[in-house]
């Protein structure tokens, strides 16, 4: 059963078409990787799903419910957490404040405290610097914070935009391990956008390849990883 269903989605920036008739079904409890070169439309896809962008046509459904035209504040309230490109931690606020912010809309202070404790257990460096401004964190710690902040909202769908960007490969591996654990232990549905196809394919169940706004492949990750032609032409490895 699919949690997120994207039908015939087209998005344009003025005359420029960023997505052209994209179809996508996200299986519940699976990690789906969206791969493709710079400018393929990956970030546009995430921003449209979460309501930051309005599509020119097509629809987005979450668990059967139409969310295409909802503003982002309301999409969040349906359980979609988005870790934006470049982490999006608020550097002027402390680590704890950033985390709290992720779960405020749920209006459940008791569970928010529990959720924050869980994040501190998951990412020890964050627990050690709760009261420091997020601007003092390293790139890897910021990514942990951005991911932790999304988890605090206890999402049904977790969307990650280029989490490996600018990180050392050891830290990327660590993060990918955490994402895999989230799927295995909590059954979380993950939409993972990556340019770094190799690391994304290592944890994904399903892989979708975008090329200039169109889906050119939608296959189990293992099948795609074994397809030399596709890898060479679109993923560059």
């Amino acid at each position, binding site marked *: 059963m699919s949690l997120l269903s994207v039908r015939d989605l087209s998005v344009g920036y003025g005359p420029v078409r960023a997505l052209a008739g994209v179809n996508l079904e996200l299986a519940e409890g699976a990690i789906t990787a969206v791969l493709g070169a710079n400018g393929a439309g990956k970030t546009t896809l995430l921003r449209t799903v979460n309501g*930051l962008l309005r599509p020119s046509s097509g629809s987005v459904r979450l668990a059967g419910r139409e969310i295409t035209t909802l503003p982002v504040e309301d999409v*969040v309230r349906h359980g979609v957490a988005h870790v*934006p490109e470049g982490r999006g931690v*608020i550097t002027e606020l402390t680590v704890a404040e950033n985390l709290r912010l992720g779960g405020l*809309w749920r209006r459940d202070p008791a569970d928010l405290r529990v959720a924050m404790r869980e994040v501190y257990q998951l990412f020890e460096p964050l627990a050690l610097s709760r009261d420091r401004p997020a*601007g003092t964190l390293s790139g890897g710690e910021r990514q942990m914070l951005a991911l932790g902040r999304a988890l605090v909202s206890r999402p049904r769908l977790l969307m990650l935009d280029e989490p490996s960007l600018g990180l050392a490969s050891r830290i990327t591996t660590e993060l990918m391990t955490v994402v895999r654990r989230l799927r295995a232990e909590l059954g979380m549905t993950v939409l993972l956008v990556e340019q770094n196809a190799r690391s994304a394919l290592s944890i994904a169940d399903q892989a979708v390849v975008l090329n200039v706004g169109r889906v050119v492949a939608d296959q189990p990750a293992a099948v795609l990883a074994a397809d030399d032609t596709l890898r060479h032409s679109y993923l560059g490895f």
Partner: protein
Amino acid sequence: MLRFLNLTLGGIGTGAVYAAVALALVLIWRSTRIVNFAQGGMMMISTFVAWSVIGRTGSFWLGLAAALLAGLILGAVVERLVIRPVESAPALNAVIVTLGLLVFLQALAGIIWGGEPRSFPPAFGIVGFKIGDTRLLFSPSDLFAVLAVLGLMILLGLLFQRTSIGLQMRAAAFAPEISRVLGVRVGRTLTLGWALAALVGALAGVLVAPASFVSPNAFDEILVFGFTAAVLGGLDSPPGAVVGGLILGLLLSYLAGYAGSDVVTLGALAILVAVLLIRPNGLFARPAGRRI
């Protein structure tokens, strides 16, 4: 020595009011990047409301409450109706709109309350405290002004630092899009920010009115001083605005006392220009954080 003490106390008294006006400007600037030139007009309206209520009821405190309430409502209404449409437009649009709003409010006040200056009663006596046989130029009314501004600032500080609403307001000011992605209703925090700013302005208006009287453009000058104080404090920092207000109050008080009161406005202008030339990010600018 007594003269210096008097000038210092007087400076703190007026500085508290400048601090409140500066804070009103800073609260709006940091969340919307708009310098609210209509702040003086909004203050004037809420002060006239207080004047009317005091005239009817004879109670200063009811008047103060009415002014604060009028400020809250006016701030929220202005943000929703006037500012919201130009929020995403080029910055100059908002500047023109706030100037237009100032003219509108002044004209409106002229229609309702007339153009002549009205006297406004102080909360407490305006005769200075006595130490031994010398009478200080610092009255119970001045003390009330300082304490009221200080109290409001502490309340605002607690609101911003200790509550969920405050956290959301700060987040929305620093990173509006990220905040929306996290579920913060940024539009509402902006409305609340304008309402609170106008509330602070309303307090400043009631505190300064006994000295300046109330008329449609009674607060033009204090807006300039408040803006100078805000720039002194960096325009982006609420504590900076408060300190900037006090510093400006002291500087102008010494200037008036030692150089003559007719150079005060010129002095404020000189300070404004000097700060913009030497420390454009304010006296307390911190080095920017790491950008990764």
